[in-house]
């Protein structure tokens, strides 16, 4: 990165706001507190390990997705931004990049901590990014896409939260069907690392990238981000 671009990244980091900086660590902190409470309640090693894995695979990606749509949807200077020669897609990309970086750093640190403390219940540690990265990409891509199409944070977060909750509540049904199994978000924590796990991860990455591609296409017409009030 050219050095003159560093100040721009610093500003975009501030523009990404507290949501980007606080949501990922907060999600993992909540997980940690839940695990401590569960452990102090007499739960077994496996149960606590599963809970920690759930935090990494389910809670962190949801938090990142919610933060992402907030970043895209809320900009007090959007009209001014659209009048500048710098592409607004690039500006949003930098802000989302900050979020992705914070999310990934938190996930790696959390994984290392859990693994070093002996509570790791996931796959080989080298494959651990596949626990959190695919659902994070998928949920983030879908939430931002819905936010842009519906031009509403509430709509996007509601739909994605409902989908997330639905997959948690009806995990058995999602896993049982051939066509939903590849897109089940919580295979590691709910099914385990076995046959079909890698396929599931790759399917999530593939479809997540598809959502991102559509978002990038929509950002080629950034005026679509103007809300009805702004129009």
């Amino acid at each position, binding site marked *: 990165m050219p050095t003159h671009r560093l100040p721009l990244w610093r500003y975009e980091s501030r523009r990404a706001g507290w949501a980007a900086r606080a949501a990922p660590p907060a999600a993992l902190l909540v997980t940690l507190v839940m695990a401590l409470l569960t452990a102090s309640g007499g739960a077994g090693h496996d149960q606590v390990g599963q809970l920690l894995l759930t935090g990494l695979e389910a809670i962190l990606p949801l938090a990142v997705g919610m933060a992402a749509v907030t970043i895209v949807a809320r900009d007090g200077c959007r009209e001014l931004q659209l009048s500048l*020669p710098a592409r607004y897609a690039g500006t949003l990309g930098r802000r989302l990049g900050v979020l992705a970086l914070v999310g990934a750093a938190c996930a790696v640190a959390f994984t290392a901590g859990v693994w070093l403390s002996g509570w790791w219940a996931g796959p080989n540690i080298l494959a651990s990014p596949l626990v959190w990265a695919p659902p994070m990409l998928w949920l983030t891509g879908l939430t931002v896409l819905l936010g842009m199409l519906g031009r509403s944070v509430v709509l996007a977060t509601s739909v994605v939260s409902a989908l997330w909750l639905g997959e948690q509540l009806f995990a058995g049904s999602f896993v049982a069907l051939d066509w939903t199994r590849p897109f089940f978000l919580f295979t590691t924590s709910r099914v385990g690392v076995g046959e079909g796990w890698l396929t599931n991860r790759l399917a999530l990455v593939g479809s997540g990238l598809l959502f991102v591609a559509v978002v990038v296409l929509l950002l080629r017409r950034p*005026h679509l981000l103007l809300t009805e009030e702004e129009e």
Partner: protein
Amino acid sequence: MDIQTTGLSRRFGKVTALHSVDLSVPGGMYGLLGANGAGKTTLMRILAGVLPPGGGEVRVGGHDLTTGAGRTAVQRRLGYLPQDLGLYPDLTPREFLDYVGLLKGLDDTRARRQQVDELLELVALSEVAGRRMKGFSGGMRRRVGIAQALLGDPALIVVDEPTAGLDPEERVRFRSLLAGLAGHRTVLLSTHIVEDVAQTCQHAAVMAGGRVVYTGTVPDLVRMGEGATWEVVTTTGAPPPVGVVVSAISRTDGTHYRVISSTAPGAHAVPAAPSLEDGYVALMQRAPAQ
């Protein structure tokens, strides 16, 4: 930097915001007058590259705004102050200008910071340059807005309703600031406040219902009110039965009405010399119903 639009149109769903707008802006300070909803903001946004045109041709400084490349080329030489400039309340004016400067491609840190300091001085914000903008008044926010518009020494400045909501003192100060910028630039001032144009522009266009209904000099627009501007004094307090009342002042001898009407609005009506506001109202009366 001249602006030429031919048959420019733009729709939002079923609403047509611009109907085949033909406009030629040669340079200097140019006023765009019109009531709220006349289509001014849509036109400003198209000229600033915020919105793509729906149809017709738009050229700014020879660049075709119907293409992405044309819009980017214009944006490199543009300063834009939107009607609702949100700002970022957690930033100081110095940080905000520095950030916008980076987005405008002013990559030389030293030159950018020097320019930021000069602009803060120009808009009289040097003393609060390190204070977060959260508690800034409307006038201070507009001054930050015009300072960011001036970053990079743009050849075209587009300002949309810059004095709306300002107190009289701020409005006068802001008008003077804008007028001083037009020397070697094109400054397009969109407003519904007639006085802003009267005090700063030599040329103006008037929009109504998404159409341009007048283009020409400001004195010619004033002359639209000749023969149609009247003063009437009534003792009953009731306004004259015909014409559009521009102003009403209550005095000891009765209420003094200033009326725009093609015929005398009463037996005691006296013809008056028109102001720009009178000319504007007279033009609006003659403009075809939308």
